[in-house]
Every structure is written in structure tokens, then in C-alpha cells.
């Protein structure tokens, strides 16, 4: 046995040295796969720019921030569909009180996979998709500070996802590796005692995604500090970059901690350490470590979407963002405060009441900067010239959902209320108003807003509006029903609810569950419309005739990313007649990049001042 292993080992090692030598020869990839037809336009002096290998090789070897942004986006959307499919199965099971279509183990597996997938494989990457593609454009940088690290960070994600989902693939093979049933919080002792190796694989996968997020964060901090164009300073840095900067700082403090806690858990599981054992460091230690990461994580997920809305909302309000400075300050305040609230997830664990009270105070305080943002968005729209395009609708839906999601959070932050509502569907309703109602909505809004830049085409507006309205209605049906279920005492994380009618009114609970299920399928249907729209429009949508599909110039709102897009288009139209694929396709221009990316008089909202200023502009 050992001898066999050693032989295999030696063989594998020798083989790999050969691979490494081969790779070293391949190092000059550009010379290895020259572009067919040499269709590079622009000045040849700008080396390396226009040369990308063709076909699939390009996507495996790219270090271009725009390509990597697209990869992140595609990855996140695949994860979104995986997580969505899992939850639709769960909602179907919950349409009736008993075990109808699955057993508890499978339900628990789906629950775990849904939560982890949506937070780590959809939420974080979809934000990274936008930040990779657009932050360099918004700050006038050529690329990220460390393009290769950027690519490594992305390529850690697919193996991470495979490991996290591994149990689902291996369970049918009968290897004894099943999907994890720990829920996304992985509370000990449950997670330490499940003997299933699928849990180890999931933890390792999570660890990889954490490494990836940390590498990305370091890269964004370095990029925003050091790669800004000459005309971009701290005073006129755009709001999206501010939120990404804050998010990256949060990641830098939170994710390494998650990584360490995961390793401790792996050691407890496999090497009989006792970090989280009852007779050792105690299960409560896990909760402290997890939530010290976990609460900042929710702001890691929500701050950039807030930045996206702060960026897009003014464009369709015809006014610049109201109180820009205060939006930035509130972002920073939330960033700092978010590290002082973690124990509000642990009010009912029996921790010291004095500690509890202080966490309650900070949690309530975090509502203040959140409200500052909400009022600034509302005031931005006030008396504005609103244009209800799909991106704008998603922004408005975002604000409306934040009001409900945020206020329910404030209720939960009050200890006496939380002791009643903890571990009920009320909590599920609260955070889904935020994760679905805000994060997913802002992501969709930004996808529509920037679709023209990425594809050079326009989507089908009618379908986009249907997508919005169905999502908005579905979200509010589903998650409002969950809030009510919570008030009725329905506990979360159960596959069935066949309880005694004396505990809770079973008939109403059943009805509310059915309402939630219907809402969930409405959301699911809406996303199918969206998927069709994206694919169809990417290939067949009408091509743009100018670089201003949103008529932003009329309001002096033509942001830096669209200015960059315009230089790309002009270079293509003016120079050779070749089509410029703005997704960074094989044909790319360099000529215009150095000039005109940043306007001569940039403002913090990225627009440029027009000769005639609007009266309500200030």
C-alpha cells in the first residue's frame, strides 16, 4: 500500500517536472498563437495590447481586466442558476407540510449548497465582475495593478465551486462522499461531527474562494491607490470605486479570519484537535470567529451594490448624487462599524448580557449611516427628471427593498425582539430582502446599464422591464410571506412543518408557505426571461450607433466608462472599418486609450461639466 503510493508519487512528480518544462517553453504565448490575419489595429508601438490568442485559449490565458470581468460574470451567473435550482426544489418541498418530494438529508444538502453558493459563488463574484471590468475604466488605469494575480484569483474559483458542490456529484457513485449538511454557518459541533468527507471538500473549496477574494481585494486596494489616472484624485474618485475600496478593506480583515477558522475546523474534524470541542475551545468560539467574519461579509456583499446604485441612479434622475460626500462617509462608517456588531447573531446563545447590550447598541447605530444613504438616494430622485429604464427600475426596487430589509434588521438588533424571532423565518425574510432584493437587484441593474459597453449592442427593453416587475413582485411576495411566517413562529431550516396546531396555526402557516413558493417560482421565471434576453441580445441585439445609449450627454452625466467606450468606438469608426468588440475581443484598439479617457474637468460623479450648467445641478 505505502510502496504503491510512493511509486505513484514519484511518477507523478517526474511527470509534473516535464509539464513545468513544457510550460516554460510555452511562456511566450503570444508568439505561440499569433492572431489569425494579424487584425490588430492601432499603433504597433503599443506592444502586447492587441495580441490575444484566438478562441478558447484566449479565455484560459487572459490577464486583461475586461476579460477577467466577463469570466467572473459568467461564473457568477452559473452559480446563480445552481443556487436558484436548489432553492426551487426546496420551495417545492415546502409547498405542503410533510415529506413529499425529498428526504430531510437532501433538503439539508440543498439548503447548505444554496446558502454557500449564493453568498460565496454568486454574490462575491458578480461584484468582482463589475469591479474588474469597470474600476480600471472609471479611474483611468490601464489595467489592474497586478494583472496576473487578478487571473489567479479568478482561476481559484472554479475549483472552489467544484469542491463545494463535490458531494452532489460523488453521492450517486456510492463512494461515501455526500453533500455537506452543515448549513452555511457551519456551526460546531454539528459540522465537526459529520463524518462525511464531502464536508471536508466543501471546507477546502470555501478556503480557496477565500484566498481568491483576498487576492482580489489586495489587487483592488493597490489599483485604486496607485493606478489612478492623472486627473483622478481622492476628491473626484467615483462612488463605485469608493465602495469597492471599502469592501476590499473589509475583505482583507474578514476573509483571512474565515480561512483560519476553516482550517481549525478541518483540524478538529481530521486530526483530533479540540478548538471547537465542548471540552476544548467550545462551540461558541466557532460562532465568534464565524460571525466576526460573517457580519462584515454581509457588508462586503452589500456595499458595492450600494455603490452601483449610487452611480446609476443619478444618471436616470438627471441630477448628480445628492450629498456625495456623505454617501462616501457613510460607506466608510458602515465599514468600520460592521466589525463591531457580530454578536447580534449570538444573542440567544447565553453570552454575557452586558456584552449583548453593547452589541445591540452598535447594531442599532449602524442603521444611521444606512439611513443616510437611503435618504440621499431618495433626495437624488426628488424633483429629478426620472427616466424609468430597466437599470433605473432595478435601482428604485433596490431602495424599496432596502427599506424593508434594513428596518427588519433593526428590529432583530433589539435583544428582546431577537429572542423571540431568532431562528425563525423572520430572519430569513430579513436577509433575503437584502441579498435578493438589493444585491441581486443592483447586479441586474448594472448588467443592463453596462450591457451596451460590454457587447456593443442593446438588450430588449420590453423583456427587461418584464424581468424587473416579475422579480420585484416575486421577491416581495416570497419574502414578505416569510416575515409573517416568522411572526407565527415557523422555525427556519426545516424540511417539514407538521407540528401540533396548538403551537402555531398550521393552516395559515401552510398557506404562507405556499405563497412563498409561488413567489419563488415567479422569481425563477423572471430570471429565465432575463437569461433569454441576455443571450439573444448578445448575438442579435441592435448594434449601437453611438457611444451614448442612455443619452447621458444631455444631462452632463456621461461617465468615464462611457467616455472610454466612446474613444474605442471613435477609434474603430474613424480608423479602419473593422468592428471593435468592446468585450475585449480579438480586435482591439489602442490609439485612443491614452487620450480622452478622463475628461478635462472631471467631477466626482464622473460626468463632465457642460458649458451651460443646469440650475439644479448643484
Amino acid at each position, binding site marked *: 500500500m505505502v510502496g504503491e503510493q510512493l511509486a*505513484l508519487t514519484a511518477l507523478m512528480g517526474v511527470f509534473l517536472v516535464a509539464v*513545468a518544462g513544457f*510550460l516554460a517553453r510555452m511562456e511566450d504565448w503570444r508568439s505561440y498563437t499569433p492572431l489569425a490575419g494579424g487584425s490588430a489595429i492601432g499603433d504597433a508601438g503599443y506592444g502586447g495590447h492587441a495580441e490575444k490568442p484566438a478562441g478558447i485559449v484566449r479565455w484560459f490565458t487572459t490577464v486583461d481586466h475586461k476579460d477577467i470581468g466577463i469570466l467572473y460574470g459568467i461564473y457568477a451567473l452559473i452559480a446563480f442558476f445552481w443556487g436558484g435550482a436548489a432553492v426551487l426544489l426546496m420551495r417545492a418541498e415546502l409547498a405542503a407540510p410533510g415529506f413529499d418530494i425529498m428526504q430531510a438529508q437532501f433538503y439539508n444538502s440543498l439548503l447548505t449548497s444554496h446558502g454557500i453558493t449564493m453568498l460565496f459563488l454568486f454574490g462575491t463574484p458578480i461584484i468582482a465582475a463589475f469591479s474588474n471590468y469597470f474600476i480600471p475604466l472609471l479611474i483611468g488605469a490601464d489595467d489592474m495593478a497586478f494583472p496576473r494575480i487578478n487571473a489567479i484569483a479568478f482561476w481559484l474559483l472554479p475549483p472552489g465551486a467544484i469542491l463545494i458542490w463535490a458531494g452532489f456529484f460523488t453521492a450517486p457513485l456510492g463512494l461515501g462522499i455526500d453533500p455537506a449538511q452543515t448549513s452555511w454557518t457551519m456551526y460546531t459541533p454539528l459540522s465537526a461531527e459529520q463524518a462525511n468527507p464531502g464536508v471536508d471538500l466543501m471546507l477546502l473549496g470555501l478556503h480557496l474562494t477565500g484566498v481568491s477574494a483576498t487576492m482580489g481585494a489586495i489587487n483592488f486596494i493597490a489599483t485604486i491607490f496607485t493606478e489612478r489616472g492623472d486627473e483622478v484624485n481622492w476628491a473626484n474618485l467615483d462612488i463605485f470605486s469608493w465602495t469597492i475600496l471599502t469592501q476590499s478593506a473589509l475583505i482583507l480583515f474578514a476573509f483571512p479570519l474565515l480561512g483560519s477558522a476553516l482550517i481549525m475546523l478541518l483540524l478538529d474534524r481530521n486530526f483530533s484537535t479540540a478548538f471547537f470541542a465542548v471540552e476544548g475551545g467550545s462551540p461558541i468560539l466557532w460562532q465568534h470567529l464565524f460571525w466576526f467574519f460573517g457580519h462584515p461579509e454581509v457588508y462586503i456583499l452589500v456595499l458595492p451594490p450600494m455603490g452601483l446604485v449610487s452611480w446609476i441612479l443619478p444618471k436616470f434622475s438627471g441630477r448628480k448624487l445628492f450629498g456625495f460626500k456623505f454617501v462616501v462617509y457613510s460607506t466608510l462608517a458602515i465599514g468600520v462599524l460592521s466589525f463591531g456588531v457580530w454578536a447580534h447573531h449570538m444573542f440567544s446563545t447565553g453570552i454575557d448580557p452586558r456584552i449583548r447590550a453593547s452589541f445591540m447598541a452598535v447594531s442599532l447605530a449602524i442603521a444611521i449611516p444606512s439611513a443616510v444613504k437611503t435618504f440621499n438616494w431618495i433626495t437624488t430622485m426628488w424633483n429629478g427628471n426620472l427616466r424609468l429604464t430597466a437599470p433605473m427600475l432595478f435601482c428604485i426596487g433596490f431602495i424599496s427593498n432596502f427599506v424593508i430589509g434594513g428596518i427588519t434588521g433593526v428590529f432583530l438588533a433589539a435583544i428582546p425582539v431577537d429572542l423571540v424571532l431568532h431562528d425563525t423565518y423572520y430572519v430569513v425574510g430579513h436577509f433575503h430582502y437584502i441579498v435578493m432584493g438589493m444585491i441581486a437587484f443592483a447586479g441586474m441593474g448594472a448588467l443592463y446599464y453596462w450591457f451596451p459597453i460590454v457587447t456593443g449592442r442593446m438588450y430588449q427593453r420590453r423583456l427587461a422591464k418584464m424581468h424587473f416587475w416579475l422579480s420585484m413582485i416575486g421577491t416581495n411576495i416570497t419574502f414578505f410571506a416569510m416575515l409573517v411566517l416568522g411572526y407565527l413562529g415557523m422555525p427556519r431550516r426545516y424540511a417539514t412543518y407538521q407540528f401540533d396546531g396548538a403551537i402555531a396555526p398550521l393552516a395559515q402557516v401552510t398557506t404562507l408557505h405556499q405563497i412563498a413558493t409561488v413567489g419563488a417560482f415567479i422569481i425563477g421565471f423572471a430570471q429565465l426571461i432575463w437569461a433569454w434576453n441576455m443571450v439573444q441580445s448578445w448575438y442579435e441585439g441592435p448594434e449601437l450607433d453611438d457611444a451614448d445609449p442612455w443619452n447621458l450627454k444631455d444631462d452632463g452625466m456621461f461617465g468615464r466608462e462611457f467616455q472610454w467606450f466612446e474613444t474605442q468606438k471613435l477609434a474603430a469608426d474613424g480608423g479602419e472599418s473593422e468592428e471593435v468588440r468592446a468585450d475585449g475581443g480579438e480586435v482591439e484598439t489602442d490609439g485612443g486609450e491614452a487620450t480622452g479617457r478622463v475628461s478635462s474637468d472631471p467631477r466626482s460623479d464622473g460626468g463632465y461639466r457642460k458649458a451651460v450648467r443646469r440650475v439644479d445641478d448643484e
Partner: protein
Amino acid sequence: MDETTSDDPSPRTWDDEPESPARTSAEEEGPTRTSVWPLVVAMGLTVSEVGVFMGVYPLAVGGLVLFVASVAGITHEAGYTGRPWRLAGALGVVLVAVGVWMVSTQVPLAVDPVVAAVGGADGIVLRGFSVVGAGLVAAVGAAVVSAMGDGDVDDGFPA
């Protein structure tokens, strides 16, 4: 325009001129838009993590060797080192040290106890040995390749 064009006649001699002008112009004029290494680095890290943790020794060794080699490759490509094989060798030595440390956490570093532990299939000791093995493969491999490639202009990779 770019020293990496395939028909470029000039040999790449990092040893003599780490700061050769051809190289700097390519590196500074515009961001590089492609690299094979990031994917390999990510695979190396994944395979070694799974291999070492789950105790699948061939994966552990293979993954670590791949990781070391790709780190050397990417560092070289980014211009941080002129001699990637030397870096790979150094990382190999580090791995040997880490592996020995892992073994030493379980048994005293003497022949009999170590043999007994291996015979008893002690998980941590075997993992330690897989790390040592990976380090040795990396270090020896690096030395061999480096010796082979020395001074050969057609050879394409710097030693």
C-alpha cells in the same frame, strides 16, 4: 515591437543581461494581456491543498510540484526574477523543511521512531513525507533542468 515574436532572432539570455532592453520595452509599454501561468498556479494550489489535506499522496506531491514550478514561472514572467529554476529549487528546499517539521510534530526525528510511524501509517507523518517528497522532486528537478538548460540559446527557457 515585441521581443517575444516567434521569428525573433535574438536569444534570450537572462543570465547575462537580466535587464535586457528588449524585455523592458515589452514589459513597460503596455500591460501584458496573456499569461499561461495563473491557471496553472490556481490548479497547483488546489491540487496540493486537496492532496495534502485529504491525504492523497500522489496528488499532494504532484500539486505541490506544480505549484512550486508555476510560482517560479509566473514570478519570472512578471520580471521579478531572472532565474526561475533557482527560485523553484529554493521553494523545494522550503517544502522539505516544512515536511520535516510536520513529521517532527509527531515523532522524534530518529530512524526507528520514524520507520515505526510510517509502518503504522500515521496520517500526519505520511503527509509530512509527501511534502518532503514534493520538495525533493522540485529541488532536484530544478537543479537538473537548470544544468541542462545552461547556456543553450535554442532552449527557450532561462536556466
